[in-house]
Every structure is written in structure tokens, then in C-alpha cells.
């Protein structure tokens, strides 16, 4: 048994080291001297990157908070027309990757978009005759588009908090003769602050990591800069240096989020949370609540989804061929393999911590969890740099080179580094619900570790494993920058094909891969919600 534990610990250490290597590699570039390319970047675009990234962080943070919190507040505390439907429907924008919404909205509301064209035709004017036209292909457009699909992060965290954890606090406030606005202002918003910030931080991290939207809308950010240096100038060192600055940026964000959360979790005093009693809304209150929930659902999911279906119907015959089926299968396979691998490694790491419960095992878990906060482009560049260093060493030692970059191994490695934190969070929550006394009872019963794992832990943790599998699957299917950098030559996924078609101004044709991604993700999101309700 002791050997088994040691084996588990050793493999956990090996995985932690492997997973943290790209981060460490990137971090070292902070201290490496400047090249000519780098000096050029510093003098010309670095300030732009910093300003735009900050602007996006603030914009997405505010807009996702507004959309996510207002909808969570209404759905959690009130009953109104469609409130049950919105409970599920408001999560659906998760199924649409930011870049796909960008393609669709540009195709609809851009200068040559179909909706813009329709309105101009209606008034018999052309674009130059319009006194004011807001171009969606701008940084503000990017903020709007991203917020429409990232607000569910804030919605989900606040929804859980308001419905269960804070029910007694809110119900107590209602007894103090305060009106709805006073309860909202004096109690609900202050106690929800940690939940709002936690959700908004996740949305901001996603926005900062985005490549597809920024590239398509021509917004200069750190991530597009990393690509330009790597792809355009062929300089992995400079790309890594830029990535190291972005990583520092993200770490500051994490530290700020943790700092604000310190000592500020407001929970009911009871151990068992009781769901809050909802209030029925009537008259114009009911209509306003309906509209507030309908708008994000409409613009974040329904409208783009319907538009995709129309475009799909127009173009599928042109796009769906053997090549497309191959890349469709590639994407599914990549998603399934990654989800299986990541879920298995996360289970190993978290179970090791449960069994060993020592400080090093706890540190492993925390280190690995940092991966999710690091943008995909940074992880990709970190892996390329690391394999580059290994390759040079190998070349010196064996006079031969070995190729890992541009193989499926590199891509899977990238996904593990980037997404394992999601899986670990799932398992941590799952294991927290299994009392330690179950393990103890099994040990005293004389049952070995293997049987305890298979007969006790696995049946009790299977919902968390399923949730982890589905979430990773969705993330991998939607992932763009990391796949672009690390994929083998000529290896396409649905996401890459969608981007390529848009870059060639084939927005309508891009609906085929885009709708495929959305439908796969939507089915997965529904499966996930059903699993959450069952658990």
C-alpha cells in the first residue's frame, strides 16, 4: 500500500514538473536581453498592446458583470415569464466561441454585412452617405462581441451564490422593511462582490487570451503581437519575451482577484444551504425582467445561431466534402483524447493530494492550476521554446534532431497545460463532497487501495469526472491559438478552418465549421447541465 502511495506521488510530481515547464520557460524570457526586433516592438507597438489589453480587460469586465449579474439576480430571486427557460438558456452563449460570434456579427452588422446592406437598401443610401456608422470591426466591437458570449461566467458563479449560499442573508434582509432597490444596493450587491469578481476575472482572462476575434477585428493586443512575432518575423525568442510580459500581466490580475477575495466570502451560517424562496413578478416588472434576460440570450445565442443555420443552408454543399469530414473527425478525436488524458491526469493529481495530504502535494495542485490563467498563445510559445531548447541539446549530444514540435504530442501537451486546471477544480469540488471517513472505513475494513478506489471513490466521483470530460471536450473543440501554433503540418480543426475561411472573406461558407462547433458545444453544454442537476 505504501508503495502504491509512493508511486502515485512520484507520478504526480512528474506531471507537475512537465506541466509547469512551459510556464517556467516563458518566465525566464523576462530576464533575457533585448534583440533588434524586440527594440522595434518596444518603440512602436508595445504601448498599443498594453493600452488595448487594459481597455479590453476593463470593457469586458464591466459588460460581463452588467449582463451576468443582472440576469443571475433576476433568475435566482424572482419568477417571471420564461424564468425557468432562461435559467438554462442564459448559459447557451458558452457554446459559441468568441471568434465565431465576431465572424457572424461582422457578416451581419459590418460595413458589408447583410443587415447593414438591408437597412441601407431600405433607405436607398450607400455607406458614404450615412452621417454616422459604428464599425463593429473595432476594439469596442470586440469588447461587445466577447462580452455577449463570456457573460455566462459571471452568470453561473452569481447564480449559484444567490440561489443557495446567500439565501438566508437575503431573506433576512427582506424582513427589515427595505424596498427591493435598497435590498439590492445594501445587501445583495455587497455580498455578491466576491462572486461577481471571480466570474468577471474568468471572463477577462478569456478575453485577454483571445486570438480569433482580435486578429479578425484588427485589434493589436499581446496575443496578436505574439503571433506576429512568431509567424511574421519568425522570432520565437521575441514572441516568448512578449508572452512573458503578458504572463506577468495575468499573474497580477490573479493576485488582485485573490487579494480582493481575502476574508470576503459571505456564506450562510448553516451547513446545508436551502434554496431561496422566489418572488413572483407581475405587470411591467415582469416585462422588464423578461427583456433583461431575453436580450443577452438573443444576441449571445439565438440571433447568431439562427444566422449560422441560414448561412449553413446556403453553403454546406460547397464546403462539406471528404476533407471537411476528415477535419471534423480530427476535431472530435482531438477533443475526446484530450478530455480523457486531462481528466485522468487531474484525477491522479487530486487523488494523490487526498491520500498524501502533505504540503508538496498541495503545492503541485496549486502550480498546475495556474495553467488555465495563461493564454493559449503563451502556453504554445512556451512549449515551442522548451522543445527548441531540448532539440538543441539533443542535436549537440547525438548529432541528430528529434521532432516533437508540430506533432500531436505537442498539441496534447499544450491542452494539458492549458486546461488541466478546469478538471482539477471539478475533482476538488467532487472530492470535498466525499467525507474522509469513507476512506478510513474502507481501510479498516481491510480493503486495499485499488478496491477502495474502484468501489468507493470512482462511483462517488464519476459525476465530477463526467463534468470534467465534457468541459475539456468543449474547450478543446473551441480552442484556436494553441492549436494554430502547435498543430502538425496540414492538420486542420473546425476552429482553424472557420478562421481561414473568414480571413478569405468567405463568411457564409465559414458557417459550416462554425455551426459544427456550436452544435457540438451546445449538446455538450446541455449534457453538462443535466449532469449538474443530477449531481
Amino acid at each position, binding site marked *: *500500500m505504501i508503495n502504491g502511495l509512493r508511486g502515485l506521488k512520484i507520478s504526480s510530481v512528474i506531471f507537475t514538473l512537465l506541466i509547469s515547464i512551459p510556464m517556467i520557460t516563458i518566465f525566464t524570457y523576462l530576464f533575457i536581453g533585448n534583440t533588434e526586433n524586440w527594440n522595434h516592438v518596444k518603440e512602436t507597438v508595445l504601448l498599443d498592446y498594453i493600452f488595448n489589453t487594459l481597455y479590453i480587460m476593463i470593457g469586458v469586465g464591466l459588460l460581463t458583470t452588467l449582463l451576468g449579474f443582472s440576469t443571475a439576480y433576476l433568475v435566482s430571486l424572482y419568477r417571471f415569464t420564461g424564468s425557468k427557460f432562461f435559467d438554462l438558456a442564459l448559459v447557451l452563449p458558452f457554446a459559441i466561441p468568441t471568434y465565431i460570434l465576431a465572424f457572424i456579427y461582422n457578416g451581419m452588422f459590418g460595413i458589408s454585412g447583410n443587415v447593414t446592406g438591408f437597412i441601407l437598401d431600405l433607405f436607398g443610401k450607400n455607406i458614404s452617405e450615412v452621417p454616422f456608422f459604428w464599425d463593429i470591426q473595432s476594439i469596442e466591437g470586440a469588447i461587445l462581441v466577447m462580452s455577449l458570449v463570456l457573460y455566462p461566467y459571471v452568470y453561473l458563479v452569481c447564480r449559484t451564490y444567490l440561489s443557495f449560499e446567500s439565501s438566508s442573508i437575503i431573506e433576512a434582509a427582506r424582513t427589515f422593511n427595505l424596498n427591493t432597490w435598497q435590498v439590492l444596493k445594501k445587501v445583495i450587491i455587497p455580498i455578491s462582490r466576491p462572486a461577481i469578481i471571480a466570474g468577471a476575472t474568468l471572463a477577462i482572462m478569456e478575453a485577454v487570451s483571445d486570438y480569433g476575434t482580435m486578429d479578425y477585428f484588427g485589434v493589436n493586443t499581446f496575443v496578436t503581437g505574439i503571433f506576429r512575432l512568431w509567424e511574421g518575423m519568425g522570432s520565437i525568442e521575441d514572441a516568448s519575451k512578449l508572452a512573458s510580459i503578458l504572463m506577468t500581466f495575468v499573474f497580477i490580475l490573479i493576485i488582485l482577484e485573490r487579494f480582493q477575495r481575502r476574508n470576503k466570502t459571505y456564506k450562510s451560517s448553516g451547513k446545508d444551504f436551502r434554496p431561496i424562496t422566489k418572488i413572483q413578478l407581475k405587470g411591467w416588472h415582469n416585462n422588464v425582467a423578461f427583456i433583461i434576460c431575453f436580450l443577452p440570450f438573443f444576441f449571445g445565442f439565438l440571433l447568431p445561431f439562427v444566422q449560422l443555420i441560414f448561412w449553413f443552408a446556403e453553403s454546406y454543399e460547397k464546403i462539406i466534402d471528404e476533407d471537411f469530414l476528415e477535419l471534423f473527425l480530427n476535431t472530435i478525436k482531438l477533443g475526446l483524447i484530450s478530455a480523457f488524458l486531462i481528466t485522468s491526469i487531474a484525477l491522479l493529481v487530486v487523488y494523490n493530494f487526498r491520500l498524501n495530504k502533505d504540503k508538496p502535494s498541495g503545492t503541485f495542485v496549486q502550480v498546475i492550476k495556474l495553467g488555465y490563467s495563461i493564454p493559449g498563445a503563451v502556453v504554445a510559445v512556451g512549449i515551442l521554446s522548451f522543445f527548441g531548447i531540448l532539440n538543441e541539446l539533443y542535436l549537440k549530444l547525438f548529432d541528430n534532431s528529434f521532432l516533437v514540435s508540430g506533432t500531436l504530442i505537442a498539441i496534447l501537451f499544450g491542452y494539458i497545460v492549458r486546461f488541466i486546471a478546469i478538471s482539477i477544480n471539478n475533482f476538488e469540488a467532487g472530492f470535498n463532497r466525499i*467525507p474522509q*471517513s*469513507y476512506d*478510513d*472505513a*474502507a*481501510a*479498516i*475494513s*481491510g*480493503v486495499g487501495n485499488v*478496491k477502495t478506489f474502484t*468501489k*468507493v471513490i470512482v*462511483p*462517488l466521483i464519476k459525476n465530477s469526472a463526467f463534468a470534467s470530460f465534457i468541459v475539456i471536450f468543449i474547450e478543446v473543440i473551441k480552442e484556436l491559438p494553441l492549436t494554430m501554433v502547435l498543430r502538425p503540418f496540414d492538420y486542420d480543426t473546425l476552429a482553424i478552418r472557420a478562421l481561414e475561411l473568414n480571413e478569405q472573406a468567405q463568411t457564409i461558407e465559414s458557417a459550416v465549421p462554425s455551426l459544427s462547433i456550436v452544435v457540438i458545444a451546445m449538446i455538450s453544454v446541455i449534457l453538462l447541465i443535466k449532469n449538474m442537476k443530477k449531481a
Partner: protein
Amino acid sequence: MVSVNNFGISFDDTLILENINFDVNNGEIVTLLGQSGCGKTTILRSIAGLQREHEGNICIGDVCVSSKEIFEKDREVGYIFQDYALFPHLNVEENIAFALDKLSNKEKEKRIVELLEQFDIVSHRKKQIHQLSGGQQQRVAIARAMANNPKVLLLDEPFANLDSMLRYKTKMWLKNLIKENNLSAILVTHDKKEALSISDKIGIINDKKLLQFDTTTNIYNNPVSHYVANFLSEINVLSSKAVNILSLTVKNDELATIKVDDTHLTNEINNLELKLIDSSFCGDFYEVIVCLKDDVENQIHIKLKDARVLLKPFYLDISKEAIKVIKK
């Protein structure tokens, strides 16, 4: 028999317990009593082998289990967890069978039937755990703990989740079970009534130490310290003024105490005239708080059957024999 010798344990350099010594004979029930977090459960976990890094020795029968690498399963202990630790995804039968892994299917089936009958849960055999009441769940937990015929039974707050009626019944039933099977049983609780009613011996733990370990009657009647006395029964500490009036000899490190049940009031005049601070009706009695007339700081608690005594000047009525001088 279980022997715990010079037992001590620390977590992260914080000393939790030191120099703990006690024995539990076969057929004997020992209760470890102390406030929450004093380390009682840690002793149980160490005996069971769930906590193996500790100082001192733990012997079960003739085998010193802590001096050799003897794992949980080889210690012949049964453990009843406070939350019962019944696996929610297995039914009653499967929970019990879980402990019988080493037996053949035929032997396993035979033993399950024996246990189901012994613990009167035959009709619940196929039920899921959440379909059982608290008392039934506890019986399943005990059946599982007894499945491998342990020599030692360890019980961590076993009555905490039961209502008062069920608690009394279960206590008696468990006591008989331990005696009939000649088990060495160690029970952990913070409830003194529970400890007094079920145990042969009691150990009081406070401030990292086992303050007193003795038979139930001895520890109740002859507590070694104020803490032990106060923990097991309600006592009044007599003020120095009362001590002088009663001409008692009490050293600096000692206290003169009297049980609340032995403290009475009278209307007959003596030197100990009292003043009423508070009184409340508690059904069978009045709970009264009084003090010596010019000694307001030191309160005396009294349970009064008849409150009419308070209508006239009243005085403390205690017999010198009921006063116990104990260490501070």
C-alpha cells in the same frame, strides 16, 4: 485488551497530546471525555492505525501494533464513525459485504445473514442508505464494524446523530453487545451524561493531558481537580469568606467545592445570609443564583424545589461532609 502507553502526538509542530496512559480490559467500556478539539478522536484514529505517526506504544492483546508496521486491517478493530461513513452508492447488504472482502462468496453470504439477523436489519437488506432512519443507519454501521469479529470496538460520538429516546435505547443495546462479545470498547464523547451512563471507566482529557483515568464512580466522587469536578458535575466553588465562616482548612492551591445538588437554602438563621441575584422556573425546579450578602462577586447556583424559601430572609444550608477540597 488495549494498552496505550506514553502516547503523544503533534501536528505541524503543534503538540496535541502528551504522555497519555490507559488500559482497556476485555468486556470493558472506556470513555474518553473532553471538549471538542482536545484530541480524543486522534487517540481512536491512532489505535485504529489511521494515524500512524505518534509517540509511545499502543498494544492490542499481546501485540504492540505501533512498534511494528501493522496496518489498519490487521489490528482487529471495528470503528464506528461519527457520520457512520456508510457508502451512499451501496445498499445495506453491500455496505456490510464491503468489510468481508477476504471471504469466499458462500462464507460471505452466511456472515451477512448472521449480521443482518443479529442487528435486526434483515428487512432493510436491499435498501439504500438514504432510505434508513438514523438508528437503522447506526445499526448498519455497527454491523459493518463487527463483520470481521474485532477484538476492539472504537466509537466516535456514536449517539450524536440520534434523538434522545433513540439515544437511550441504543446506548443500552450497545452496552449489552460489547459485554456479550467481550470486546474492549473505547468511546469518545463530550457528553458527560452519556459517559457516566455507559462507561466502566472514564478518562478526562484537557490541555494535552489525560487529567484523570478511573472507574466511573471514583472519578465522579473523587475528582482530582476543579476541571474534572466541573466537567462531570455542576459544582459551586465556595468563596474565601464562606470558607472562613465555615472554618475550613484550604491551602493556596486548593478550592473548597460543593455539588449544586448538595447546596440548599434555609430560613433558619446562620452566618451565611444570602442575597438573590436571579431565579428562573425550569419545570421540575427553580434555578436560583444567589451570593453571600456582602460578597456579590461569588455566585452560588442552587436548584430549588420550593421557591417559598425566598420569600423570607434565607441562608446557605450545607453540610461540611458534602464539601470537597480539591486541587485548583
